């Protein structure tokens, strides 16, 4: 399984960074690192969704150390990977469950369509495989068939799913679920929520209410608040993280859909701006496609040193 996982991740990452790799190849084939070359390199980084600011800083540090050198593609890639890995290293931290918490409460939040429910399904499988007892809460009572979607994941993984009637109050449901999970001595309670745009204050207040109500039962809950981010998202991800972090105290990120053509460069910008741990990355639709985030591997993949 370990082998399959590595190759799968590499496959996913290399696909997602193919364009960047091609771009780099075109940008620098042993030539003088002059203003024009640096400008091209900056363009390549921007096109990888690193964002103009981060791309600008990487180029600035390049300029200081290497300006005027004759450089090869490999050198550029190595230096770039090093630069990116050093930004990502501090945030590559897995989500640790506190065994003293019975259960450890995980609230999963994010904008619509980022993959919250799928991520919960994958997490459930992961915990089941570790011999833990996860309980899933179908807290998306708004979207059509969201409850059923999580129930299918419950069947697939064998984890119990707690749900309420359509349009039920998500906070009340979360409270009942926490009560039940505590009685049943579950290890981890994974609470799904409806997708919501961060600029809709009423919907964000609803999330805050879930947290408030959970705290009536356990003042330390939720012990983790996971923000699920779509890797195809551009610079708006920065705003998403900022608002969710401020309003619901996000403790870590999961980045999904890294198996596509999206290059995931936004991750670098997020690490710089917030330093929030990136707990896992999603690299496919199957239950096993949730992987720990590895800074070195990601950086190498990003610049094509797989």
């Amino acid at each position: 399984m370990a082998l399959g996982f590595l190759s799968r991740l590499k496959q996913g990452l290399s696909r997602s960074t193919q364009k960047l790799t091609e771009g780099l190849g075109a940008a620098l084939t042993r030539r003088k690192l002059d203003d024009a070359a640096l400008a091209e390199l900056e363009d390549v980084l921007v096109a990888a969704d690193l964002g103009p600011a981060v791309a600008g800083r990487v180029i600035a540090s390049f300029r200081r150390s290497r300006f005027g050198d004759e450089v090869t593609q490999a050198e550029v890639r190595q230096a770039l990977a090093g630069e990116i890995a050093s930004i990502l290293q501090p945030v590559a931290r897995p989500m640790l469950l506190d065994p003293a918490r019975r259960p450890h409460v995980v609230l999963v939040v994010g904008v619509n369509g980022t993959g919250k429910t799928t991520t919960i399904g994958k997490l459930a499988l992961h915990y089941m495989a570790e011999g833990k007892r996860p309980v899933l809460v179908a807290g998306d009572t708004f979207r059509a068939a969201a409850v059923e979607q999580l129930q299918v994941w419950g069947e697939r993984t064998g984890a119990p799913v707690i749900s309420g009637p359509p349009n039920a109050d998500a906070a009340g449901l979360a409270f009942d679920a926490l009560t039940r999970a505590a009685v049943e001595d579950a290890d981890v309670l994974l609470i799904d929520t409806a997708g919501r745009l961060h600029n809709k204050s009423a919907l964000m207040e609803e999330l805050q209410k879930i947290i408030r109500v959970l705290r009536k039962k356990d003042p330390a809950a939720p012990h983790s608040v996971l923000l699920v981010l779509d890797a195809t998202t551009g610079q708006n991800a920065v705003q998403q993280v900022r608002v969710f972090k401020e309003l619901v105290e996000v403790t870590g990120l999961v980045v999904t859909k890294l198996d596509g053509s999206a290059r995931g460069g936004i991750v670098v910008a997020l690490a710089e701006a917030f330093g929030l741990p990136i707990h896992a990355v999603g690299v496919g639709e199957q239950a096993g496609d949730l992987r720990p985030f590895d800074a070195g591997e990601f950086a190498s993949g990003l610049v094509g040193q797989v």
Partner: protein
Amino acid sequence: MFDALSDKFTGIFDGLRRRGALSEGDVTEALREVRLAMLDADVALPVVKDFVARVRERAIGAEVLSAVSPGQQVAKIVNDALVEALGGAGAVPLNLAAVPPVPILMVGLQGSGKTTTSGKLALRLTSREKRRVLLASLDTQRPAAQLQLAQLAERAGVASLPIVAGQSPVQIARRAMEAGRREGFDVVILDTAGRLSIDQALMNEVREIREATSPVETLLVVDAMTGQDAVQTAQAFNDALGVTGIVLTRMDGDARGGAALSMRHVTGAPIKFSGSGEKIDALEEFHPERVAGRILGLGDIAGLVERASETIDQDEAEKLARRMMRGQFTLEDYAAQLRQISKMGSISSILGMLPGMGQMKQKIEDANIDTTVFKRQQAIICSMTMKERRAPEIIKASRKKRIAAGSGTSVQEINKLLKQFDDMATMMKRMGKLGQKGLMRQGIGALMPRGMGQQRPRGY
């Protein structure tokens, strides 16, 4: 959603406006800013380059340097180029000119909003164009996706194809078209599973679906928050399927909208609709010229008027306008207005449509104004007597106490409301003096009390 971008543009052109004459260096400087702003807004790099080159070509030279107001001239050139990049003036309607049932194929990445958009589109075609629509989900990948569409169809009051377990997407597509023919539907909307453009097996599958059904429209559904990757996705789907239109979803978010600018440029397909909310009727025609105006901070007056005319009671509005012009505006009228405004949506979404209000809007959002203030103000007015509503100047301390108790508010809030009402009356007098022409020339800012644009608005 384009606020951040329009804020930036507003800043850039403010810089230009302050100068009398414009040098070539100024144009270069402004365009560098335009380039950065667009990159920040997730506009795809090739599109940015092309855009900036086009504007530079037009801007540098006599055209601008000899213009009476160079800043305005550059703003106009940027605006024109933006409209072009967004697909030219006017919305492109859906093509339904074919023998019914007309198949519409919905494709896109996972989580872009295909199923929700399918439901919205079905409702729109049913209610506005009086078509009989059949919804069919070909998504056998994601758990409960078919059920999701069935539930959406029920909410929209539209027919959906009965779910048969174990069928392949191509089989479902054939069955949908068969049912469409047999039961006399005008349109069959085929909602497909989300797929990555690099997933060959799934791309082949959707090609088969296309061959089996020959869709008249193949709509690519794209999240407006998408980054640089939007271009790759659109290109791949276009190469594989021949996209005939694009639907941009989550336009009600605060993404800067680069995807919108890139799409037409890269695929050649027009953006036909934009999704702007979670309600099933939140699907609008995409108007490039309006969105470009919004980007440049010129406002989306046309959109505001359209939304207003859909939600506002015409007779009541005319009555209100007449009273306003005659200076007979009372608290009763204000309450009526509050009711109508709350029907139109959030304050910030309305403000975003007004010219020159981009910065105000940001400030209002920053100030975190409690949007329930409208409701409370309505409650306050409802707690007044008819006499008080018509002549608010009679409301003194004792009446205020009574009204506060009656409406569950405080005397301070009543003072604020009365002050606000007073300001409004002043504003209306100015509007009368300014007339229609003045309003168009100076924008809504001309109506604001001096300094209001710079001030942090007081919280309520």
